[in-house]
């Protein structure tokens, strides 16, 4: 076996694993395998033809997506729709090194940490779930910054080789939650900054002067101002 290309390439690897595959009868295995191949044919249709490579595993299929993390995430999520057709899939997604290996005529294959980690991640995923590694999240953030906001932490997992993986899962509400948090932070920051401006003005000129100037700016006469203040005191029950 020799590497076909000395430089290791990076790819997003989507590992589609059929749950409990080894325990199923051969007839069911064949049916599930055929179903999985049909699913892969459908979900890869919107990827560029030169952008993905399908690899066989005994209990699933790994798809190495080149230079398109967003496409890889879409592929992973779309494959789960197959669960509705009775295909118990778990999906692991990773971004890492892959390398074409050629052992001579007719023995092309692919190896690399990118595939190994995707397989480990798929092992952790429950049926009909997608789990995503930290490195894929980073690649996704770089390629399409808003999309990584849609991933929530799933926890830290340790594989059989005692390697820890920080994993995430696609969470539809995560982006909305983050958006709401940002809006709240924006409003709070605006209030604080405007308040700081008012405070600075009051500190420099005295609060009565600032109040009078502000009221003057909103177009209240001295009589109207006195009447409005009296009404406000009565409303809140303030007695000076």
């Amino acid at each position: 076996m020799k590497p076909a290309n000395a430089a290791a390439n990076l790819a997003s690897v989507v590992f589609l694993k059929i749950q409990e595959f080894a325990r199923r009868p051969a007839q069911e295995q064949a049916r599930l395998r055929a179903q999985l191949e049909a699913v892969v044919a459908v979900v890869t249709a919107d990827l560029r033809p030169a952008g993905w490579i399908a690899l066989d595993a005994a209990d699933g299929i790994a798809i190495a997506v080149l230079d398109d993390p967003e496409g890889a995430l879409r592929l992973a999520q779309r494959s789960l729709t197959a669960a509705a057709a009775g295909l118990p899939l778990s999906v692991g997604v990773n971004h890492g090194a892959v390398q074409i290996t050629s052992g001579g005529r007719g023995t092309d294959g692919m190896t690399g940490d990118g595939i190994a980690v995707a397989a480990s991640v798929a092992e952790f995923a429950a049926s009909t779930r997608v789990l995503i590694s930290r490195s894929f999240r980073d690649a996704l953030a770089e390629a399409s910054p808003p999309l990584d906001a849609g991933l929530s932490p799933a926890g830290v997992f340790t594989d059989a080789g005692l390697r820890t993986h920080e994993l995430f899962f696609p969470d539809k509400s995560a982006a909305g939650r983050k958006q709401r948090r940002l809006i709240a932070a924006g409003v709070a920051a605006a209030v604080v900054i405007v308040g700081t401006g008012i405070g600075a003005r009051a500190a420099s000129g005295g609060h009565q002067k600032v109040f009078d100037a502000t009221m003057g700016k909103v177009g209240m006469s001295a009589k109207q101002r006195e009447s409005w203040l009296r009404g406000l005191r009565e409303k809140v029950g303030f007695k000076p």
Partner: protein
Amino acid sequence: MTKKKPQLAQLGRYKITGELGRGAMGVVYKGEDPALDRTVALKTVILSDDAAGKDEYKKRFFLEAKAAGRLSHPQVITVYDFGQEGDTAYMAMEFLKGKELRTRMQEGSISVPEAVHIAEQVAEGLGYAHEHGVVHRDVKPSNIMLLPHDKVKIMDFGIARMRASDHKTSTGLVLGTPKYMSPEQVSGSPVDHRSDIFSLGVVLYEMLTHTKLFQGEDTPQIFHSVANFQPPPPSRVNSEVPPMLDFVVERALKKDPSVRYQDAFELAADLRSALSELVDREAAAAGEKQRDRDTTKTMKLDADSLRPVFPAPTAAAIGSDTRLPMSLRFECSNAIERLTNPTRSDRKRLTRAPHPVGLVRRIWREPGKRLLFLSILAAALVGSAIAVV
């Protein structure tokens, strides 16, 4: 079956009329039963010279012959009688007019449906024997007889136990033919009916792929191969094999008996399903051929023969240095070409590790962060205006 001049004239009540073959244990003769006017095959075993060993050997031979004699099934050779004549123990069996599977495999490749049909019948026969507490221990092509009308019979039930001296290892005695032995036979562990299922899996694999599965220059090498070699799926060696058979063979050839087929009938059922799938496929292909007879087509050359011939591991077994074979079902040559002969831009794009995304880029690309930034900016302007103006 060749007929040679016999050295013996009589064995018990049987008149020997010819020699059918010679094996490790003794000679197989053709004989006549004068009482029933029936042709029989007489399998002989030379008993040990050592008196203690002789008694033990004889006892085991008769025990096995008795067990085999209880079996009555269309796929199992019938044992009529057994006895002893001097230093020779013999077993009178049904005389079969047919061809050994080994000979058939040597003559030419067996079609996939034929191979499956043979294996299915053998599995049925084994299932019956296992149900009756008899384990064959030496399932191999030369012990499978192909009869007219596509019938199959398994021969030499229980005989393997008699060949204790054939293969000895440091861990103890092993019985069987090395290339068709199960891993538990090779390691000298206790053997049960699942060992026969493994051996049948080897026979099926060889019929489907027309190759030898476990190879080696000597017995230890073969043993090592049996215990460790993970064979590629048969469909990768022979593209005519449907995927379902890959799963059947894979399960039959599991090294760990607890995850192998637990029952030969279960294997037979899966083979029947595969056979019906094959028959349907052939019928569909025949229909298509009929339709296309008068048309011309541009054919894409089958690239399967150039495809990988190594097994695909499970997700749990994949490490950084584990090679996954390219899938045969999808056309990925363009992407492979991109990796093997990348253009300048591809070389840069495909080898570059992702960098952390900077704040400016995030503000520019993410609407939420952009909104936050703009509102802070506006607030800062308003605050400054209030403070200064």
